[in-house]
């Protein structure tokens, strides 16, 4: 059933009037949204950055395939073909033992140029998988192939990292869900109190034949405004806080190859997300609270 524009304007006016009439309750509800969103937001920012750093490290994981010294050039080609045929592979590149030695000398110092006389290193295929988690499996498969001396990927470190990231993500999801749940509970309770104060009004509306939708609308709009008002402070605080933190910390960490998410790429989605959450819990809180007083 389409709502008349006049009726919608009435609901609009009513929602503001009600917020003014119940000033302290409105303030309490807005504060509840503010506090919980601030907690959720800060936590979200930390989680997103940890996740980014973890993913960066994961993406650096590669399998180094040592080619047997006895392999001829065509053997090596065959090995390469076989590795490429594995479905998990994203890229493969070749690094001869001479190149390997040059890299070593560059990283470790010219002491290692001794080995130029008698190079002890292997020719190496550097293999990356599409999903970092497939690395151990792929390494195991490659080791089965002929002419592979060894396939190494820093076993223990990598698996520890993967396990840590998996746990961290799960814990993060549970914590965010818990925070959001608490927020909803708190807000719906606050709104419930404001609606409880108006149950007589609802009762009379029902007695004179107002439809449930008609009764509900001003409350839903009120929830919407409360959510929006409550999200202002957290969004501003997180944007400002992240702006300064990112500048201060990023400079110090960049030498360790750790990069934070940039200001806009982080703050924009977080702002949208917090706003959506705020509006959703505001409306949802109103909805379930008003429903309780509806069956008069």
């Amino acid at each position: 059933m389409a709502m008349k524009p006049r009726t919608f304007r009435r609901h609009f006016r009513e929602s503001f009037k009600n917020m003014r009439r119940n000033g302290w309750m409105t303030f309490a509800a807005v504060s509840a949204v503010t506090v919980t969103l601030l907690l959720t937001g800060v936590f979200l920012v930390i989680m997103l950055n940890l996740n980014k750093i973890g993913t960066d490290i994961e993406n650096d994981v590669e399998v180094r395939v040592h080619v047997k010294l006895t392999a001829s050039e065509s053997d090596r080609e065959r090995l390469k073909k076989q590795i490429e045929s594995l479905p998990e592979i994203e890229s493969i590149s070749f690094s001869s033992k001479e190149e390997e030695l040059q890299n070593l000398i560059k990283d470790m110092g010219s002491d290692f140029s001794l080995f130029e006389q008698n190079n002890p290193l292997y020719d190496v295929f550097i293999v990356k998988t599409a999903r970092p988690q497939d690395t151990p499996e792929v390494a195991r498969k490659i080791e089965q192939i002929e002419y592979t001396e060894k396939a190494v990927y820093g076993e223990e470190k990598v698996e520890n990292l993967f396990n840590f990231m998996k746990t961290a993500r799960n814990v993060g999801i549970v914590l965010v869900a818990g925070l959001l749940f608490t927020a909803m509970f708190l807000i719906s309770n606050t709104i419930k109190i404001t609606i409880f104060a108006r149950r007589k009004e609802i009762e009379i509306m029902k007695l004179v034949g107002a439809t449930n939708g008609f009764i509900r609308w001003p409350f839903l709009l009120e929830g919407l405004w409360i959510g929006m008002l409550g999200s202002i402070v957290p969004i501003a605080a997180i944007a400002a806080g992240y702006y300064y933190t990112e500048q201060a910390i990023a400079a110090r960490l960049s030498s360790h190859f750790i990069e934070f998410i940039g200001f806009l790429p982080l703050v924009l989605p977080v702002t949208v997300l917090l706003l959506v959450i705020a509006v959703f819990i505001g409306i949802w809180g109103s909805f379930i609270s008003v429903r309780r007083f509806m069956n008069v």
Partner: protein
Amino acid sequence: MIEMQGVTKKYPNGVTALSGIDVTIKQGEFVYIVGPSGAGKSTFIKLIYREEKPTDGQVVVGGINTANLKQRSVPTLRRQVGVVFQDFKLLPLLNVYENVAFALEVIEEEPKVIRKRVMEVLDLVGLKHKARMLPTELSGGEQQRVAIARSIVNNPKVVIADEPTGNLDPDTSWDIMSLFETINERGTTIVMATHNKEIVNTIRRRVIAIENGRIARDEQRGDYGYEA
């Protein structure tokens, strides 16, 4: 207008408020519901505006069967039934005019019609000059007049009144009663639960006496029949 057939009402706590009620009230009738406290008068009244559903039997009001009425259709019924209570049930923050207009606003009536209708009924109940006052600034009788004005402002076919004079002094009660008579003369059915012996015995109308959940007596131009 109102038809009950084999109506039984049991509450979840096990109390049987009404059992085997058969009654027909025609359009334009004026009916008193009398009986001792706790006999089922209020339940009878509540069945009519579908505050309660019958456990068994049929309640048909203005062609609508309340027993199997969907929750979302209840407003349709309520718009045909005006209700007046002992405690007036006015909204304290709205003035007299707004309290009456409220009943039309919630059914999305045109603003022009609202203004016209509200002033008409306020004139009828004699409170046109107090339209801008708050309920707390009025006497009990005046508040009840506002409640009555609200109950009839959307031209319902029937007005249900639950002890409308219960909180009022005798003189004021007579004023309220003559208001109900006026409304009845205009063709609106009135169903009134009351304990007021004086009124029932003076303004003689149909009397339905309910005792222990059954109709003990149903007389045209009956009397109150109980010691007050």
